């Protein structure tokens, strides 16, 4: 399937450079195995990998399958493997990769829809499974207070985990997810910690019960890859270890 194509240079500036963009192509409906198509793309120092892929779609092959939306690392749609590492395409500048060849592949540990787009159903299912919302008997409307106040220290306990954008990069990097298809995954476990550590939440016991499964929190081997690839600075590996503290009775 390898093919080399050159993008029209009509819009390139004198400062632009060229890279070879290798895009993984696979359509599970009629392909037996994946292959790569190569394109020669010009880029500036601010050009992101997503912009290069969209350049390919615009000027050469519009059939390249890629999911994207916000282009500012907020929606979590454009996760992919870029030069062997899970990253957000909109958040990765080509100039930062220090390579003349940029290879983009779909994320590991996810079923492929087509080319670079993967199915997120399991990620959303496991996220939903851990009850990602505050559980309490009372509500703000019924309470005498207008809001549930928290001290800065209480917010500090969980706030970094609230930055998760559900991009799936942590699940893609997780070695346990690669072998254990039933593993709940670092994304859901980090979110479980986010709500368990929230002083307003009263659903700790029910959440801990959900993740206390043969394919739950205990299958994490603390490789730490999830924390290394997170584009939002969340540390799921730490969240999992802190969550284990609750399970083992070191934290309450």
């Amino acid at each position: 399937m390898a093919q080399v194509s050159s993008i029209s240079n009509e819009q390139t500036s004198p400062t632009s450079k060229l890279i070879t963009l290798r895009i993984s192509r696979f359509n599970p409906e009629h392909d037996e195995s994946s292959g790569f198509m190569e394109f020669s793309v010009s880029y500036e120092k601010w050009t992101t990998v997503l912009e290069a892929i969209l350049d390919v779609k615009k000027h050469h092959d519009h059939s390249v399958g890629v999911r994207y939306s916000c282009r500012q690392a907020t929606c979590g749609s454009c996760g992919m493997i870029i030069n062997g590492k899970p990253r957000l395409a909109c958040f990765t500048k080509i100039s930062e990769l220090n390579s003349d060849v940029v290879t983009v592949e779909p994320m590991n540990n996810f079923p492929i829809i087509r080319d670079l787009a993967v199915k997120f159903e399991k990620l959303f299912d496991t996220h939903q499974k851990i009850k990602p919302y505050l559980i309490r008997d009372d509500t703000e409307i019924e309470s005498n207070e207008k809001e549930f106040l928290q001290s800065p220290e209480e917010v500090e306990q969980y706030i970094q985990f609230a930055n998760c954008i559900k991009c799936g990069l942590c699940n893609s990097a997780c070695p346990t997810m690669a072998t254990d298809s039933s593993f709940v995954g670092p994304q859901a476990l980090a979110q479980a910690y986010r709500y368990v550590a929230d002083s307003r939440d009263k659903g700790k016991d029910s959440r801990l019960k959900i993740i206390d499964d043969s394919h739950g929190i205990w299958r994490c081997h603390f490789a730490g890859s999830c924390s290394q690839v997170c584009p939002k600075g969340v540390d799921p590996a730490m969240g999992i270890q802190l969550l284990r503290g609750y399970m083992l009775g070191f934290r309450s």
Partner: protein
Amino acid sequence: MRESTIMKIHYGTALAAVALVAVHILMRLTQGFAESLEYENVLANYKFIPYAAMLELILILLSVHGFNGLRVILLELKQGRIYEKAVSYGCLAAMIGLIAYGSRTIIMTNMGMV
């Protein structure tokens, strides 16, 4: 049994086994290595009840820890309801079998049947 209870046992048996195996190695150092493996000395170890009890405890701790570790590895290799049940009960049976066989050896030797 809940997975957290199993894993508490897993970690506990590991810590206890490290401590008892250290005692076991220290006791072997009281005589030369070749000498400690001589038939009469091995029999004497088993006949010394506190030491035989410690060996029995080490056998139980390592069997529980080892077979649970094997169960965890096998559960990560493949998934499926029937497979997971087979792995869990298979490891439990193997653990009981090994403990029974090892205990038989210790008890028979202790009672002078060997």
